[in-house]
């Protein structure tokens, strides 16, 4: 996919941005008319402004999906000749269990062997592990990995003495020591899995486009077992490709980097992506946490193209199995994205890169804005001016203000529409284009979408609260650190869920009581937010349980990809006490 002409990308961006701003302004006007019915006050204007930003943000997500539905993936430039590049697959690990990570490497190696191109690829396991016992297991695991794969001389391991710069520093350390040996580097996460064919295809596309600095794939979530995990897995497989296509239409030369399951040109990355420490203490200073967005911006600043190819399949990752793990991960991402506020004025960045930073910030501020809107609405009756029944001088008949509730209802319908309409349209599109077949057929896909929408509605207020707390912590200067990502089955008891979310329940009760006292008429409107908040522990515990229903089928389950089968086989081999026999590549 060559970079589309600048004017075309500019036009798409302009149309989609204008549409979102217009929808936001529509929300602003509707709310102002509703608020002005009983006399305009400062709280009405403030709430209308909050609605403007929130509605714009919702619309921005929705228009990307609408755009994504209008096109099909484009065929990118590639070449079919022999590979000429030397490529290294980087697997940064940080206190990860080698029994989970190393079989994935073995699976990718076996998958590469099946392509006949394995000789062009090396693996480098880059350990930042701090725990000595885990590090020892990694060293022993390497020996086992080499015995399983027979890839000695192509699989390397090194452990850093200090983990300066975390993952970005880990990659940088590798490039400064060994980058000269390679043309291309595929950056993975510890839970990444990629098909050998996809790895080869990425190299082909990089070789066909010398101006391409980074090529990102859209990873699909796999191996989810809990209800929450499977809902996320389904949503990522069903909706994300369409949203990603919309994003790809707007990317031009400044596409995204999500930190893993992507390939970079080593020279371009080395020239452009040496990250500094920001002045001042964390959370806004120090190491750049969400380094991927910054690296994408820096590559674009240096003139390299950054691109996401939404047609590339065979790219997988695992996701959090429960809402608390999801919130913990989001806490890190929140800090990283808000830290980007420091980089909005960084010299030389492309305007779109700056806008990407704004998007990341808005993604985390948006729930806070919604919460502020709800609180303002509860407090609004305190600010209402006394009704003037005789606004016309000399007119002796009272003028009864006309209720503008219809405006509020219209606004609510618009907001719900922005939330649900893109997903429903994606469902219709999947049915019409037979994409639904991979999801168990149109009917099964419809049931999964319905259940996913219901769960989204229930879980959104809980995530809103987790998100708001994260933002407050970051703004208050509390550094969230970088805890190891906990994986596993993730099941939570009701007691554990209560411990994690009791403050949300109390907040819901307080909010409800406040609304009852100050503006009881608002209670029915607030119920969809307050009731799930009060039920947060139940929602968290229920959704963390293993999924039994046949809902949420994905194409990767309907037809298990080769690399996932290989991964399962190597996990089994790893679990045997003696070194397992080599698994045939053919």
């Amino acid at each position, binding site marked *: 996919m060559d970079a589309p002409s600048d004017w075309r990308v500019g036009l798409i961006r302009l149309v989609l941005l204008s549409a979102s701003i217009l929808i936001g302004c529509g929300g602003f006007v509707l709310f102002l008319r509703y608020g002005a019915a009983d006399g305009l006050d400062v709280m009405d204007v403030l709430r209308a402004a909050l609605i403007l930003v929130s509605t714009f943000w919702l619309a921005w997500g929705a228009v990307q999906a609408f755009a994504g539905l209008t096109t099909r993936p484009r065929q990118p430039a590639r070449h079919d000749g022999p590979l000429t590049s030397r490529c290294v697959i980087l697997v940064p690990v940080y206190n990860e269990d080698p029994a989970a990570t190393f079989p994935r490497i073995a699976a990718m190696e076996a998958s590469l062997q099946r392509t006949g191109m394995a000789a062009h690829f090396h693996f*480098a396991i880059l350990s930042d592990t701090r725990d000595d016992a885990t590090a020892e297991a990694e*060293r022993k695991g*390497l020996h086992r990995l080499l015995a399983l794969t027979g890839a000695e001389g192509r699989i*390397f391991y090194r452990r850093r003495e200090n983990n300066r710069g975390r993952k970005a520093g880990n990659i940088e350390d590798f490039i400064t*020591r*060994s*980058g000269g*040996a390679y043309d291309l580097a595929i950056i993975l996460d510890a839970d990444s899995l990629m098909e050998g064919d996809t790895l080869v295809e990425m190299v082909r596309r990089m070789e066909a486009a010398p101006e391409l600095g980074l090529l990102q794939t859209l990873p699909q979530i796999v191996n989810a077992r809990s209800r929450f995990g499977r809902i996320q897995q389904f949503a990522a497989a069903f909706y994300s490709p369409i949203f990603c296509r919309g994003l790809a239409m707007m990317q031009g030369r400044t596409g995204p980097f999500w930190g893993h399951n992507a390939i970079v040109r080593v020279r371009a990355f080395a020239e452009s992506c*040496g990250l500094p420490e920001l002045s001042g203490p964390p959370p806004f200073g120090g190491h750049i946490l969400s380094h991927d967005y910054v690296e994408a911006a820096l590559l674009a600043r240096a003139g390299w193209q950054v691109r996401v190819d939404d047609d590339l399949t065979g790219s997988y990752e695992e996701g959090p199995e429960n809402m608390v793990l999801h919130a913990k991960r989001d806490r890190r991402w929140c800090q990283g994205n808000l830290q980007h506020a420091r980089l909005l004025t960084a010299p030389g960045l492309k305007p779109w890169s700056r806008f990407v930073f704004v998007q990341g910030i808005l993604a985390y501020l948006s729930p806070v804005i919604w919460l502020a809107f709800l609180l303002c609405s509860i407090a609004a009756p305190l600010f209402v001016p006394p009704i003037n029944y005789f606004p016309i001088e000399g007119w002796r008949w009272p003028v009864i203000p006309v209720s503008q509730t219809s405006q509020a209802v219209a606004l609510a319908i618009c907001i719900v529409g922005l939330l649900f309409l893109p997903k429903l349209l994606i469902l219709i599109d999947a049915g019409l284009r037979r994409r639904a077949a991979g999801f168990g057929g149109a009917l099964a896909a419809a049931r999964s979408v319905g259940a996913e929408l219901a769960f989204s509605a229930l879980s959104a207020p809980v995530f809103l609260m987790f998100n708001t707390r994260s933002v407050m912590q970051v703004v208050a200067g509390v550094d969230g650190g970088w805890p190891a990502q906990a994986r596993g089955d993730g099941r939570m008891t009701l007691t554990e869920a209560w411990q994690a979310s009791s403050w949300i329940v109390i907040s819901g009760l307080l909010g409800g009581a406040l609304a009852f006292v100050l503006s009881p008429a608002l209670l029915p409107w607030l119920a969809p937010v307050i009731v799930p908040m009060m039920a947060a522990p139940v929602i968290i515990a229920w959704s963390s349980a293993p999924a039994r229903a046949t809902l949420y089928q994905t194409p990767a389950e309907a037809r298990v990809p080769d690399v996932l089968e290989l991964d399962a086989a190597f996990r089994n081999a790893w679990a045997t006490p003696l070194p397992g026999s080599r698994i045939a590549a053919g």
Partner: protein
Amino acid sequence: MNDLSGIFLTDPEAEARAPLAPPDAPMAMPTQILEQQPRRILPMLLAPFRPARRPSREA
């Protein structure tokens, strides 16, 4: 015959402790500038009124 077992380790456990390191091929990765240098407004405003620099006689 010389005993080389002390030099070439054959114990798998010991081999695992001396794993294969990635190739030695350094590449420069310069640190990028991301923060604007703070602009001092007063010196900028006063710059036109500053007397021209003259080299000292000793120079």
